[in-house]
């Protein structure tokens, strides 16, 4: 005799609170943003549906330039973070006296509240009173005060340097953890076979931490893409929009200028780009997981 299988509702019941919270704080604002992007919503309570007009307007202006700038800013910043992070992790993984102290000292940029850290950098970039310009003058690299935030290229690089300073500790610690997961036997065997330090790093360490590097690169790309406070505090997107990235442009449009419709269209573009990154991230995670199961 075949009996109907009884459905156990209890697990679904447990999911209800989380589902409600997710719908309220994630899904609803997202749906609302998409809806607003098709309206002419401003500070007036009255709004009208205007189709794709906000998107057309956005791309008819200098938004493509803003997108390109955002990707360049993100690519440079993430590359430096990963590069410095790998070097830092290798150094912190070395058996040197006081290693624990060095590991602690690497954390402050990440622990200090971002706004305070960025204000300090703002003063360091000052030509008249700042440390960087002062040291460069003493070293006779420049013959007068250099205002790093006053020129397009130097301001662009200054925001990247500050972002790298804030973001690198997390990358370093993450990669250090990955390095510590590598069996010491592999290094010892290679050493017995006469492999140099560089060769061991290239053929053992780097391949084995590559999943961690890839994961951190993608996560860092997502965070950097949305990095707002560093640029806003240092330059507010200037000079002459040289540091205006997509998130800065969205804030200026939606919040400063109360153009909620146009701002939402920009926000939707950000969501689309980040969705692609997130898609890659989850794809990679599942591949690594599958590889680990096979191995």
């Amino acid at each position: 005799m075949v009996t109907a299988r009884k459905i156990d509702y209890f697990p679904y019941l447990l999911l209800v609170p989380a589902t409600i919270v997710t719908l309220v704080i994630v899904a609803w604002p997202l749906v609302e943003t998409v809806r607003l992007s098709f309206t002419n919503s401003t500070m007036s309570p009255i709004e009208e549906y205007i189709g794709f007009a906000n998107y057309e307007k956005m791309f008819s202006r200098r938004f493509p330039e803003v997108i390109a700038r955002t990707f360049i800013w993100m690519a440079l910043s993430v590359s430096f973070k990963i590069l410095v992070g790998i070097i830092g992790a290798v150094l912190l993984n070395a058996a040197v006296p006081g290693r624990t102290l060095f590991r602690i000292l690497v954390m402050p940029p990440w622990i200090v509240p971002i706004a305070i850290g960025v204000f300090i950098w703002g003063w360091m970039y000052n030509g008249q009173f700042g440390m960087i310009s002062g040291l460069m003058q003493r070293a006779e690299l420049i013959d007068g005060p250099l205002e790093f935030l006053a020129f397009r290229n130097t301001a662009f690089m200054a925001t990247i340097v500050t972002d790298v300073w804030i973001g690198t500790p997390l990358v370093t610690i993450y990669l250090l953890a990955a390095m510590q997961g590598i069996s010491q036997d592999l290094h010892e065997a290679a050493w017995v076979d006469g492999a140099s330090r560089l060769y061991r790093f290239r053929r053992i360490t780097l391949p084995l931490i590559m999943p961690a590097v890839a994961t951190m690169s993608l996560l860092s790309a997502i965070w950097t893409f949305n990095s707002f406070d560093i640029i806003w505090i240092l330059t507010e997107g200037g000079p002459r929009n040289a540091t205006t990235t997509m998130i800065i442009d969205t804030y200026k449009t939606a919040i400063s200028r109360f153009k909620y419709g146009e701002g939402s269209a920009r926000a939707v573009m950000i969501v689309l780009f980040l969705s692609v990154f997130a898609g890659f991230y989850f794809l990679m995670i599942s591949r690594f997981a599958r590889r680990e199961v096979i191995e």
Partner: protein
Amino acid sequence: MRVLSVLLGSAMVLGVAGIASADDTRIHMIQCGDNTGGGVAIRDRLIAEWEAENAGYEVDIEYVPWGQCQEKSTTLASAGNPPALSYMGSRTLKQLAQNDLIVPIDMTDADKATYAPPVLGTVTANGQVWGAPTAFSTKALFWNKDLFAAAGLDPETPPKTWDEMYEFAKAIKDNTDADGFGLAAASFDNTMHQFLNYVYTNGGAVIDDAGEIVFNSENNVQALEFYGRMAEVSQPGPVAYDRAKLRPLFVESKIGMFISGPWERNLVNDVNWGVAPIPVGPMGQPGTLLITDSLAVFKNSGVEEQAVSLVKWLTGPDNQLEFEIAAGLTPLRDLPGVQALRDEDPTWTAFLDAIPTGGPEPFVTDYVGLQDTINEAVQGVVLGEMDAAEAVEMAAEQLEEFK
């Protein structure tokens, strides 16, 4: 038992008090800043007097930090939950009025006549007054007398024209370790404010009384050209400086002159300073940018009539002057009490004399858009990436969107 009695008694007292205050209609007022400063006690007393005259209404002041207060008021109004009244930069009033979020303040001709016409211009659009001015500032030129002397200039004679200002600044730059002038060109609202001082001392304008953009004029091209020229004799990298960052340079005697408001008089006393009207351009007359902040009354709060009454009470001539003196603000009206202020402290003169020929912050429908457009033109010229005529023409085209 005694404890229980005290608790029950307290609960009854609180309950009665709650019922009493619940009967009062709340008038929600958003005020920028905090409840400290010279004018707060005066304002609190005036509000208490108004409440005594208007039984059944209770004013609930919410202090919001400067950076967020206007955004908060506007967002609340957009969401259909407006405050009754709020402290707003007058520059935002036209945008709020156009979006039907605020009500006009009905002023009689006699009321209007108490203000200098340019001051009234900061709150008037389409023939209606959209806010009552409550804070006011003008600008003047501060100079460092010791640096003037060190550069071989007469320390008691400030420049009166743009050409003199350039020559004096050049003399300081050439003959001392300091730079001649402090120039602001950062991506910040007071860069536009600083530039407008040059526009108004050269007979220029951004928007006319009919609401048409008149930015593309020879007056403004000259003003922008001169702004760029001043970069030659100013501190290096003006684009990294907003006006507030110039003060440390002045206090450290790193710059010989800078343009700012009356609040600096109490903050630059480490140097031997003087203050004079802003030098005049070749096509203009003495002037200054006039900036007012206003109390605006929002629509749909249900207490618009009472809010207007409160605004009028707070900003009436005598009450407003008492508040201004206590808060150290530039007086909005030329009342008899203002002469006493001049006599007591002659450094007020440079800030007060230019009011009748001053110009308002442009009244447009997208203030931040206007600010970004003008700042970009200023930065383009200061960085040497554009010439003044090209920058002014480009900006004028973009400004058409905001009129």
